[in-house]
């Protein structure tokens, strides 16, 4: 009897500690979000969105070029990573039961864990070293390589939510396998695939390390593929490690914009995925 009570007490303590762990993890979350929101909002201004950076040490200016640069880099990355990732995901759903499918899945997961800075070196070797010139293209490549495994896996996962009966239905009507995949399966999973892409975008939008020596940085506005280009994360980094108060404030403002972006897409992705799950389960 006594022993049972002791076991139950111990069980209760462990249960409590597990709850405490959740609480403990939420502290830094609120701490980080709190600072970013507080410091970011107080530094955010119209200029921040519309102006270019000022020369070193001069107060004022904004991150207009960095924001455009980030969007530009994302577009370059998405332009090749989305088709590759989605089609690879389609392959995994349609034919991925065999050894090669497992190998691809495995490699994608492993690639997902390769540090972004290493991907940066790879893009540097591909697109910077041969021409001895930092460029938006190199930055976009680095980000795109990071997106591919994420999109591949989310596409596969979401296509698997679509009932196989849909495919069989199309095949029974005389559709080819390709027809069935792209005219029935993919459209059914499209909202999910799009969110998968958005999640991948949100993930890479904040990446700094692979851009440091590929896209590099640029004080001016640029939309050239072969010129260095500014980006929000690199700009935040540059400002954060600078000795200037005003730049620190701008770094916080930049962080707020970045976090806001990531947050919106995370919420959106969750809502769409859950709706999709519910739809196909019912």
């Amino acid at each position, binding site marked *: 009897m006594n022993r049972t009570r002791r076991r139950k007490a111990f069980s209760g303590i462990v249960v409590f500690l597990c709850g405490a762990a959740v609480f403990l*993890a939420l502290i830094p979350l609120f701490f980080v979000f709190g600072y970013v929101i507080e410091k970011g909002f107080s530094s955010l201004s119209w200029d921040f969105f519309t102006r270019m950076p000022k020369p070193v040490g001069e107060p004022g200016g904004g991150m207009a070029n960095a924001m455009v640069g980030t969007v530009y880099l994302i577009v370059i990355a998405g332009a090749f990573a989305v088709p*590759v990732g989605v089609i690879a995901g389609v392959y995994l759903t349609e034919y991925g039961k065999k050894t090669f499918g497992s190998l691809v899945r495995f*490699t994608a997961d492993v690639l997902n864990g390769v540090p972004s800075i*290493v991907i940066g070196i790879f893009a540097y*070797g591909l697109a910077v070293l041969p021409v001895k010139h930092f460029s938006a293209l190199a930055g976009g490549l680095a980000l795109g390589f990071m997106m591919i495994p994420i999109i591949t896996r989310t596409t596969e996962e979401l296509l698997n939510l679509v009932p196989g009966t849909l495919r069989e239905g199309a095949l029974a009507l005389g559709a080819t396998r390709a027809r069935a995949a792209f005219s029935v399966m993919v459209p059914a999973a499209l909202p999910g695939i799009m969110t998968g892409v958005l999640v991948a975008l949100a993930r890479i939008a*904040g990446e700094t390390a692979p851009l440091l020596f590929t896209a590099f940085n640029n004080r001016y506005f640029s939309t050239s593929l072969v010129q260095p280009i500014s980006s929000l994360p690199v700009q935040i980094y540059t400002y954060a490690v600078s000795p200037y108060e005003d730049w620190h404030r701008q770094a916080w403002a930049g962080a707020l914009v970045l976090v806001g972006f990531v947050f919106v897409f995370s919420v959106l992705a969750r809502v769409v995925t859950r709706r999709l799950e519910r739809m196909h389960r019912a």
Partner: protein
Amino acid sequence: MKSPSSRRSADDRGFRLGTGFFALLVVLLVAGIFWELYRTSQLSLAKFGFRFWTGKTWDPVSGEFGALPFIWGTLYSSILAMLISTPIALGIAIYLSELSPRRLRTPLAFLTELLAAVPSIVYGLWGVFVLVPIVRKLQVVTPDWLKKVPLFSGPPLGVGMGAAALILAVMVIPFTSSVAREVLKAVPASQREAAYALGATRWEAIRAALRFGRTGIIGAVILGFGRAVGETMAVTMVIGNNPQIKASLFAPQYTMAAVIANEFTEAADDLYLSALIEIGLVLFVITVFINAISRLLIWSVTREVKAQVPKPTATVAFAAPTGGGQ
């Protein structure tokens, strides 16, 4: 599945090969990264050989490159981070999969996973302006007798190993916890029921589940370790960037990823660049290795269970319409 007409099977083949090519690209990408890093680090590989990894001096000016301090910094910071994050991450996974009221589960899971969505640079910014000053204050109030212990020695700089380990721990928690949760989800309810039916308490039943999924749980922890090893920006910003091998939590040190981030654009000569790329190569090999192992461990639980347990819901779903039609 056999197709009735040959035209269709030819189409099918084209479709399979066409999409298969893109799948192959994923594999080629990993091979390509290895090849490219290997190729561009030849200079350093040839000149230093294994000495590169045992040397303690990193002096670009005199062309002396020893990477031991970076290996040390990477391993030390990652291990410290795992010591802090593992119990918390497992606690979260257990709470969310076994204990939490259903209504709280989704929002809490979302919040903890949000930790993973915050970009590294934002953690770094927060580290520089919030965490580092806190650590500095801690150092100032550290009593003298404690400072004599090697673990806490050094001037009060704030930046250093301790700050880096803390920030890494926060960043790694969501990875470990979400995978551990997935593993626990894959543990069949029958394991917990078996324990309960023998008079187990809640914790004893959870232990039975943990025990069943332990390879996967270990995989989750290793996965977190892989993340910590490769993490760059936040660490770069708070670790102090000083290539030295110290036990002290307060000493500025350096990691493999951080030295690449800091010095890559400054590497003026080919040997220097090549040495940095060699560090990248080893970082790549290590993380691929860690991730491969962790994935295999995780899959061994989640796959095996999927294969073992027949899905009753599917049979019910398919049985209903046919039965009704008869």
